[in-house]
């Protein structure tokens, strides 16, 4: 290539690279921080039940099968958005859903579940929020897919939509079971 050609091509090439990098940057969401806990065993915890007669939830419950752990709270508005989908997962027996009621008043949580339905096979109450911090929770709702060996396979930040379910979560459940 001649020098005169290079003087034209080089700035255009540099611009193209910078524009492409910035373009990719625009499609990323800075609110979604990747979790360092992927492929790691779930943090050890043991939580009391939300109700007095319930069973509570502990890390030992998340062994032996693929499960979905959902952090929710009655004060969390977008939790209401995904809640019907969680109900469906339980009604149609797609995957066991476990709940962790994060930084919430148990009485409020019970009222909330009575109104919207309770999809959780078991649920624990994390009033102080400490267990959530161990899981790297920083905003609700957050959901985690746990594999058979009790390792975190996937973290979903924000409400689960129909599309997330069909495109990401259900195929991943199939693969984890396979």
């Amino acid at each position, binding site marked *: 290539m001649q020098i005169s050609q290079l003087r034209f091509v080089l700035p255009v090439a540099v611009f193209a690279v910078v524009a492409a990098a910035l373009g990719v940057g625009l499609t990323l969401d800075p609110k979604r921080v990747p979790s360092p806990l992927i492929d790691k065993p779930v943090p050890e915890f043991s939580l009391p039940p939300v109700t007095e007669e319930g069973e509570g939830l502990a890390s030992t419950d998340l062994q032996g099968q693929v499960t979905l752990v959902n952090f929710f709270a009655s004060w969390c508005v977008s939790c209401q958005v995904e809640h019907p989908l969680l109900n469906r997962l339980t009604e149609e027996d797609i995957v066991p859903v476990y709940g962790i009621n994060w930084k919430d008043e148990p009485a409020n949580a019970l009222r909330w579940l009575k109104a919207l339905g309770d999809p959780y096979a078991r649920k624990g109450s994390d009033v102080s929020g400490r267990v959530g*911090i161990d899981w790297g929770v920083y905003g609700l709702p957050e959901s985690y897919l746990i594999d058979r060996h009790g390792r975190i396979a996937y973290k979903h930040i924000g409400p689960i939509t129909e599309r997330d379910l069909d495109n990401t979560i259900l195929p991943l459940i199939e693969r984890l079971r396979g």
Partner: protein
Amino acid sequence: MRFSTAIGLSLALFFLAGAPPVFAIGAGEALDDPALEQRAREIGKSLRCLVCQNQSIDDSDAELAQDLRRLVRERLSAGDSDDAIFDYVVSRYGDFVLLKPPFKPATYALWFGPGVVLLLAGAGAFVYLRNQSRRRTADADLTEAERQRLEGLLEDD
């Protein structure tokens, strides 16, 4: 309002707006031991509040920031080292939680990128300027034939 007063006021507003926010640390949150509290502040200043993202947990009023401040102080009181606390928080939230990114292969582009760009730009500017000056000296040196032709052209007028 006089013009100078207006300028003065808007300048004052400008600097007030840019003033660092008052610490969000609430009453009763601070530790009694001033040395431990000092370490807690240093740690709190370098941990990002993931709810607000561009504030440290010391600057943020978010509940999660408050919880993390409490956690830092509990661990300090229990005798943890600063590094142990950073390691714990990073193991839960990832490197992004550190306001100062760590120096490791994944962040080399971040740390070296600006220097590399500066070097490339400097090299580009050097080559450009050298070519310019070379062309200028080349222009100054006319051959004998060129000078005669030039004089011929000038005389024609």
